[in-house]
């Protein structure tokens, strides 16, 4: 399976602060990837590195097998929508479409026109006077109409109302179904991620905490509850994401590929939301492996 994005030890530093550190992952093609994490976790940095807007401080990244943003051909294969959907405020919708057609060799005029019609956008209206949802939709059209193999979207729905959000995701999924592009979508709205994403990257405090197919992640995480167990006696192959111990009971969120055979544990499936939240709650230091400190049951 070819990887659309491959990173090894990727890092980006501003001054003394590492916005992204030690990022190693391989994102397979044909997926809708959810990049989740709190604000300031490094999602924007990772996306901009993949789009070629930033240069790495350490490590390496390839997108579709090549240097991000390294050539017009590469730029045409990757669509990017930055946070808050930047558009030229004084330029009309039609002007933006003309820009897309002039600057992108693979521009699909028919697709763009159809989407504009579907959305009911006025071609003569200036982009500065569009609503937030309309701006996000237009920015998506500009990125998608050049028929990229990969779409990178930085929190495209963060500032939209629920209806606009839903409509944006509908449009995005329709585009994916039509063009077959891979998508990397950063968001801090877990409900949206649950709905559309089949591959997940969890990013907190500049580090990747988890990355994998959603189904595989859900299958490999277990919420275990049972009588109190000393953390030191747990199997070594278990990666404890979250644990809480009262005097009598232990509740763990554990990641393991081995089946949980010990009958003392009650094994409940984990929802995607619980899984993500558990990673988000982890203390921020360290490289991810190993057990975090004891957490008192909240």
């Amino acid at each position: 399976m070819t990887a659309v994005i491959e990173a090894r030890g990727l890092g980006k530093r501003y001054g003394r602060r590492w916005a992204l550190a030690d990022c190693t992952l391989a994102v397979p093609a044909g997926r809708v990837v959810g990049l989740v994490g709190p604000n300031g976790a490094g999602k924007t940095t990772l996306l901009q590195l993949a789009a070629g807007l930033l240069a790495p401080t350490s490590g390496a990244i390839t997108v579709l097998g090549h240097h991000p943003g390294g050539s017009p051909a590469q730029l045409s294969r990757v669509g990017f929508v930055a946070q808050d959907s930047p558009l030229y405020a004084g330029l009309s919708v039609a002007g933006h479409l003309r820009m897309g057609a002039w600057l992108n060799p693979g521009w699909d005029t028919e697709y763009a026109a159809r989407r504009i019609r579907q959305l009911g956008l006025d071609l003569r209206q200036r982009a500065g006077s569009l609503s937030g949802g309309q701006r996000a939709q237009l920015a998506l059209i500009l990125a998608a109409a050049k028929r990229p193999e990969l779409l990178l979207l930085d929190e495209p729905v963060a500032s939209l109302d629920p209806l606009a959000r839903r409509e944006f995701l509908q449009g995005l999924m329709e585009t994916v179904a039509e063009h077959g592009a891979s998508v990397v979508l950063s968001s801090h709205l877990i409900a949206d991620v649950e709905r559309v994403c089949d591959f997940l990257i969890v990013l907190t405090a500049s580090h990747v905490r988890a990355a994998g197919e959603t189904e595989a992640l859900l299958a490999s995480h277990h919420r275990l509850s049972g009588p109190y167990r000393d953390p030191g006696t747990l199997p070594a192959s278990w990666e404890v994401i979250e644990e809480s111990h009262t005097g009598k009971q232990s509740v763990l969120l554990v990641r393991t590929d081995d089946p949980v055979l010990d009958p003392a544990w009650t094994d409940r499936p984990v929802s995607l939301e619980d899984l993500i939240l558990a990673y988000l709650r982890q203390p921020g230091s360290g490289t991810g492996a190993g057990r975090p400190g004891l957490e008192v049951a909240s």
Partner: protein
Amino acid sequence: MIEFQLDTVSGVATYLQLVQQVHDALRLGLLEPGDKLPTAQQVVAKLAINPNTVLKAYRDLEREGLVRGRPGQGTFVIRSLPGTDPVTQRRFLAAMTDLLRSARSAGLGPDDIEAIYRTAVRGSFAEGVA
């Protein structure tokens, strides 16, 4: 054409919900052999879900032998579910109605009836709900 719904709170995987809805439609006669299922594009335009989910559901249905995908044309129903004979359905509907009538006259309320029904179903289908 069938219109899919999504239940986000049940915890059931999306693709399973789609498969289930096709099964239900086949059983109720809303879908018949020769009918075309909506394209992945149409489904996701309505539901805003991952197209792969739709394709996965259709692949499952194809594996069950209920549908067949024709390249360039779409996915079509090729047979109905076994045991969906409307005569059989009507017969059991009549039997169930009689049973409920006697249950109500024995003093059982709707909650009781539902609890009894669920227990009976669970006991009857040892592998879980079909």
